[in-house]
């Protein structure tokens, strides 16, 4: 559904990769290397990448930004309605992410974790073919992070054809969520490692591989 042939971008170096239906990719790499830039490019937000990232026609992309980026002057329900969700869909989605009671709340009334789940519900509301997650577990305490990880795992199981690219720092996330690993490093950043994960690939083995790559 997605073809990346990147070259001559100021931050991103030569990158040649493709994403297929059902791919669950964890994108790892040191901070500041350009992971978010790549994600933005895939979402169509970086003009310098025009033509280098080919998306299947009509590809629907849901994007969970690092910040919730809900409209603070609209309730959670209105924020979901804004992207085209019907009322019954909104209720179902909010129940799925555990926010059934927060539909009429304003984003600033929610905790960080709740706001992120509301934003996740919005990214699912457009019935995405490709879900982009930018550090979804950042700044959450370990319990909340584990909860959200479980939620995303369940959502992925419920949508087997949906592809996902998740930027993360933590190899354990890859263990739980991914069936493929991208490792971005260098200046300009190149895709050093594009690896399918088997059931036997464990977090410790990923970490070991990353250590050998000097992470």
């Amino acid at each position, binding site marked *: 559904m997605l073809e990346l042939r990147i070259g001559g971008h100021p931050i991103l170096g030569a990158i040649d990769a493709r994403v297929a239906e059902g791919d669950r990719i964890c994108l790892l790499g040191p901070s500041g290397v350009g992971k978010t830039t790549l994600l933005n490019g895939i979402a*169509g937000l970086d003009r310098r990448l025009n033509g280098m990232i080919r998306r299947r026609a009509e590809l629907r992309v849901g994007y969970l930004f690092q910040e919730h980026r809900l409209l603070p002057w609209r309730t959670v329900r209105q924020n979901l309605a804004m992207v085209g969700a019907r009322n019954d869909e909104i209720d179902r989605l909010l129940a799925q992410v555990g926010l059934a009671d927060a539909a009429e709340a304003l984003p600033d009334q929610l905790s960080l974790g709740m706001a992120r789940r509301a934003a996740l519900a919005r990214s699912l509301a457009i019935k995405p073919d490709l879900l982009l997650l930018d550090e979804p577990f950042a700044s959450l305490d370990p319990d909340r992070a584990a909860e959200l990880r479980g939620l995303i795992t369940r959502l992925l199981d419920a949508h087997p054809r949906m592809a996902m690219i998740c930027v993360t720092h933590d190899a354990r996330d890859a263990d739980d969520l991914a069936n493929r690993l991208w490792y971005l490093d260098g200046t300009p950043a190149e895709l050093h490692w594009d690896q399918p994960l088997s059931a036997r690939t464990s977090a410790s083995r990923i970490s070991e591989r990353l250590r050998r790559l000097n992470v």
Partner: protein
Amino acid sequence: MKPPRWAYWIMLPLAVALWAAIAALLETPLLPTPSAVLGALWQSLQSGELQQHLGVTLRRVLISFVLAMLLGALLGVWMGRSALANALFDPLLVLFLNLPALVTIILLYVWFGLVEAAAVLAVVINKVPNVAVTLREGARSLDPRLEQMAQVYAFSRWQRLADVWLPQLFPYLMAATRGGLALIWKIVLVVELLGRSDGIGFQLHMAFQVFDVASILAYSLAFIAVVQAIELALLQPLERRASRWRDVGAQHA
């Protein structure tokens, strides 16, 4: 710290009392007593003169305000979003910001004659640069992260305008409105004084010619009352309504 309530009710009565004392002492028509001013106000209210001229002036204020806000907001947002537009129009903006209102009024009256359109146009030309500067600031402060969000989720033009931009521009629109009304009604009076035969400015002019200070003060009082009424009845409720979501965030944070 909040000052006590009574603090708001000290200086104004004191000023009126001082005025009354001096007026009583001097006994001259050039400084009428407060009651004489109220008498003049009552008289022009009864004759219907006040309402008629106030209505004419308010209509001019309203028309030029709407035009100036519309043009100024469009220009300002465009300049805030486009570096090219800013480079093209900024020198003009500086020129018109520093052009005295009186010059615009005189020139337009000279070129177009003492007509209504020239009067309104003069006020609009004076106000548009101020609105544009304020709204340019607002457009520059638009959150680029919300722009990206709107693009990813394919917001329509209308959604972007009404749901993403307008709430962010609202404080700037309010500031332009506040400053706008204060400036416009003052300029409208000058415009009326120089070239119209009705309106408060014209009436002030007539009163000036016969040194009728009581009428001058009476008309001023009436005007201040109307402007305050607009502020209290229209602007403040509008502002409270539109910024409700902010209070929620502040409470939570």
